[in-house]
């Protein structure tokens, strides 16, 4: 699941996970930048604003490699469904916005497993900003791209930075065949479209096998 902050992708992911689990599918959720391995370095770097676009990018790649080997590949081998809240495309979009070379990024992430389905929740920058501000979410320094020094205002910087991230995502849609969901619609409508996409890509077997065959 891809999309900028405020696109609603985490909400959509949670609803999808509920549905899949209820249907009896073993699901594992993994989140961007969540491995314990790089937590200390990311925290130190963020606190001191010491991260450059390159070190930020490499730390995310390290996090991804760690989760790939521990949280993504084993469940795939065990026949489970891995739901990734952000994937390599996040790096392609964000890091390129920060000025990291696009080709270098693609080669860097060439160790990643290509997902069976990549869904991009596309939302205009005004909508995502309104959603975040309505929830009184405090915009974070790096998410707002404050490290780029484009604006001293957190909100203005967020709009500028995430606006450019949106442009990068648009390039990725064709390049990687991302399935686009219009993330302006209602939560329920988006979830309906999302489930339809997932159904197409997964062999969801009807749960009507006679029990005696298992005996």
């Amino acid at each position, binding site marked *: 699941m891809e999309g900028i902050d405020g696109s609603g992708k985490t909400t959509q992911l949670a609803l999808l996970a509920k549905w899949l689990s209820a249907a009896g599918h073993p699901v594992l959720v993994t989140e961007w930048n969540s491995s*314990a*391995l*790089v937590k*200390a*370095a990311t925290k*130190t*770097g963020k606190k001191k604003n*010491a*991260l*450059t*676009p*390159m*070190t930020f990018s*490499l*730390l995310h*790649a*390290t996090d991804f*490699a*760690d989760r*790939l*080997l521990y949280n993504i590949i084993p469940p795939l081998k065990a026949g489970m469904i891995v739901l990734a809240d952000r994937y390599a495309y996040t790096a392609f979009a964000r890091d390129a916005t*920060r*000025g*990291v*070379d696009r*080709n*270098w990024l693609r*080669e*860097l992430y*060439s*160790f990643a497993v290509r997902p069976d389905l990549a869904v991009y929740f596309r939302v205009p920058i005004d909508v995502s900003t309104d959603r975040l501000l309505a929830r009184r979410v405090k915009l974070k320094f790096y998410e707002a791209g404050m490290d780029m020094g484009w604006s001293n205002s957190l909100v203005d910087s967020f709009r500028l930075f995430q606006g450019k991230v949106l442009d990068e995502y648009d390039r990725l849609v064709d390049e990687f065949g991302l399935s686009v969901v219009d993330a302006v619609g209602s939560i329920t409508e988006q979830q309906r479209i999302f489930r339809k996409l997932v159904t197409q890509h997964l062999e969801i077997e009807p749960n009507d096998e006679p029990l005696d065959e298992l005996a």
Partner: protein
Amino acid sequence: MTNRSTSSPEDGASGGARPGSYYGYGIPYLPIDGYPGKIIAIEGTDGVGRSTQIRLLREWLEIQGYGVIETGWTRSELMQPTINLAKASNTLNKLTFVLLYATDFADRLEKEIIPALKAGFIVLSDRYIYTAMARAGVRGVDRQWIRSLYGFAIAPHLVFYLKLDEKTLIRRVLQSRGMDYWESGMDLKLGDDIYESFRAYQRALLREYASMADEFGFRMLDARRRIDVIQDELRRQIGAFLAESDGVGVGV
């Protein structure tokens, strides 16, 4: 904007890059063309006396009036605690191992090396990306991938490789600090016998370095010789290089 004219982005880090330019795609937001500083890398396994040689070189260069900074592997403020922690807790796999080192290098490159080059310093690097490549190579990481990863590195002006034979290497490491888990390649599960694992690992490392010598234009020095003999040789070659690139040199 970018600095690709003379490097070969498709290949990432590999021979053919002009000294002082990026090996591969580079860092687009940091153009480095025309910076006056120089990078001199001293490579080699453990026990070859790199830090002694660098200390002596620094002294010699400063007396001649050159500004010198030193940089070394895993010395970045950002990454050192994480790398130490990760090594201690054995949670690294070969990919995260490689990527943590690359992050450390990127941090030092942007914060120490590039500013120093811009200001005209001579950067003496205790190990360079070749150490990372050798360690990754031993662990079976894809060669093309790691070269592409280090495409953001700058090709040094000079790379000296202090070379030891396997037997001398093993004796020197045992004499100095002994075997540790990672330098013994215990993560590679080459065997339960730590000495055999250590030996196999060091042998494989030597092979990796040797395989890079031509590709990256290593200047080979026999590290079994006396410290002062090696130092004289380093000074002779560095002196010739600096005289040529300065035109005249600072003079004494």
